């Protein structure tokens, strides 16, 4: 791919993009909102908000099995959203995209079904030191239940996976590699294209946590070659309460159901019950219909953006913010991977992140402080947590300046 970065940055009309996000126009504490907490959740474009509104105003009905017009309309919209989501992650078949509450539930689903069947006493589940708690705790719970162990790929000081350590960790007992595509705390983009084949060559099943990658660049699960891929809707401009588990269809259909109830059954009798195939197999009960439809709209919105210009623009934001933050005395950035998304974690000497967060809030700047659900990662750096600014394609260079100006004020007062 030949990238003429400067011309692409100039092609990105951030003012026009921002106009699509109504929330960005408001003031907080008397200042224009500077929203730099995008790794926690993204803001929502008009296309998503209006799609939710239209669903509830004109299409609301329960899906599947309804013979009336509204039910058929809602069902069609729900399944069309699945098609959009499938295209969004390059899934060859829409039926292999299961709607869940979020990435966390998707991981728990795999742990409770595939995990319980395929992981036993003495087996190993390999994760990395930079995982979100959502990709650690479900595996610890499973390991506890079945007598398996959770093993860990270490990271280096720059916040990159120690690839030299990897081969020895892919043992004959390793049944699963569960790895984040992008670190929510450090922004590191893991070389999953390089890692997945290593695991697959040893017959190891691979789950990729795409909660952070899907917000920043297009992914293609078919090309990646993983077995499972999960992400959350609310981090990719969609509603909260909706997420996706993608899995290879044969793998999903061979898994025992997760929750029992309506919609997921074939036939029910007191003599015994049979279950449907995917996707219904894993979507018991009335799902978050509006959420799925909203996520479909978010996927369409993101796919409609110029991906090259977006990537170049976010890179520009990251580069500029990194330079500006590094110029502040006593500011230490954690996560200096060669390949990273526009997420910057840092500490400011002698000042607690919670004090920084509150004082930035006074200036209308929303950032996140604390462990960001990656306590083992911060323990590795000898910290309790950090202050994290995470940028989206609708943030501006002027907002970077607002952040650094406010940080200098904090430092003057508390440093």
């Amino acid at each position: 791919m030949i990238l003429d970065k400067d011309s692409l940055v100039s092609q990105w009309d951030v003012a026009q993009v921002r106009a699509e996000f109504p929330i960005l126009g408001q003031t907080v504490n008397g200042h224009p909102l500077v929203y730099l907490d995008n790794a926690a959740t993204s803001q929502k474009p008009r296309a998503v908000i209006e799609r939710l509104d239209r669903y509830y105003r004109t299409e609301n009905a329960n899906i599947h099995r309804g013979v009336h017009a509204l039910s058929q309309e809602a069902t069609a919209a729900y399944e069309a959203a699945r098609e959009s989501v499938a295209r969004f992650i390059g899934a060859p078949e829409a039926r292999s995209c299961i709607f869940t509450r979020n990435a966390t539930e998707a991981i728990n689903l795999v742990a409770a079904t595939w995990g319980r069947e395929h992981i036993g006493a003495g087996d190993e589940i390999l994760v990395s030191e930079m995982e979100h708690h959502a990709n650690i705790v479900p595996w610890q719970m499973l390991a506890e239940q079945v007598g398996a162990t959770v093993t860990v790929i270490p990271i280096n000081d720059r916040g990159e996976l120690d690839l030299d350590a990897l081969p020895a960790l892919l043992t004959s007992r390793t049944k699963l590699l569960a790895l984040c595509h992008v670190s929510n705390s450090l922004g590191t983009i893991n070389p999953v294209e390089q890692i997945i084949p290593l695991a697959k060559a040893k017959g190891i099943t691979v789950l990729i946590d795409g909660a952070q990658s899907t917000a920043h660049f297009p992914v293609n699960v078919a090309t990646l070659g993983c077995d499972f891929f999960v992400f959350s809707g609310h981090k990719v401009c969609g509603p909260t309460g909706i997420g996706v588990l993608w899995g290879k269809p044969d793998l999903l259909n061979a898994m025992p159901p997760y929750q029992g109830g309506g919609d997921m059954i074939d036939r029910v009798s007191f003599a015994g019950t049979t279950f449907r195939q995917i996707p219904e197999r894993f979507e018991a009960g009335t799902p978050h219909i509006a959420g799925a439809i909203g996520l479909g709209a978010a996927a369409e919105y993101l796919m409609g953006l110029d991906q090259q210009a977006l990537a170049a623009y976010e890179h520009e934001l990251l580069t500029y913010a990194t330079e500006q933050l590094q110029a502040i005395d006593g500011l230490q950035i954690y996560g200096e991977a060669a390949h990273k998304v526009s997420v910057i974690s840092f500490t400011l000497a002698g000042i607690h992140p919670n004090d920084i967060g509150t004082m930035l809030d006074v200036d209308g700047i929303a950032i996140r402080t604390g462990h960001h659900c990656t306590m083992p990662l911060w323990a590795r750096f000898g910290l309790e947590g950090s202050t994290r600014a995470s940028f989206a394609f609708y943030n501006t260079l002027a907002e970077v300046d607002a952040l650094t100006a406010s940080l200098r004020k904090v430092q003057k007062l508390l440093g």
Partner: protein
Amino acid sequence: MALRWSARGPVVDMAAESGPLLGMTDDPELYREILLDHGQHPRGDGLLDPCDLATEGSNADTGDVVRLTVRLAEGQIAEMGFTAEGSAVLRASCSLMTEALTGQSTVEAAAKADQFMALLRGESDDDNWDGLGDAVALRGIRQFPARVRCAILPWRTFARLIAQ
């Protein structure tokens, strides 16, 4: 004090105030000085050994941890010592608490801890800070709901210790 509405309810217009977070409301400069002083030079810093009472309190959400030791003499709090892992708000609150409660009977001190917690949580009708000394400087923290639990932690930890 300029009150206005934000998406999160009524707030003091901090933009108009010179001392955000550590000092606001009626006399921002005074409160800011008290809080900065206690945050940076906490009284009672360090655990007492020996001590009569010792305990630990924490907030899982904020990662704050407080360890508290108390020396008693004839039913009164003779001395308090603490360590605090957390923000300047937490350290200042620890320091202000040791000042406010030292010399009190345990019953009086527990009542003051309850009074402080009710004030910070907005559960007090009369906004009466009498008897809490310089801890009144923490009143502005109420404008930051996410930080109230930082300010309350030492007092909550103390109240639980006395209740035991």
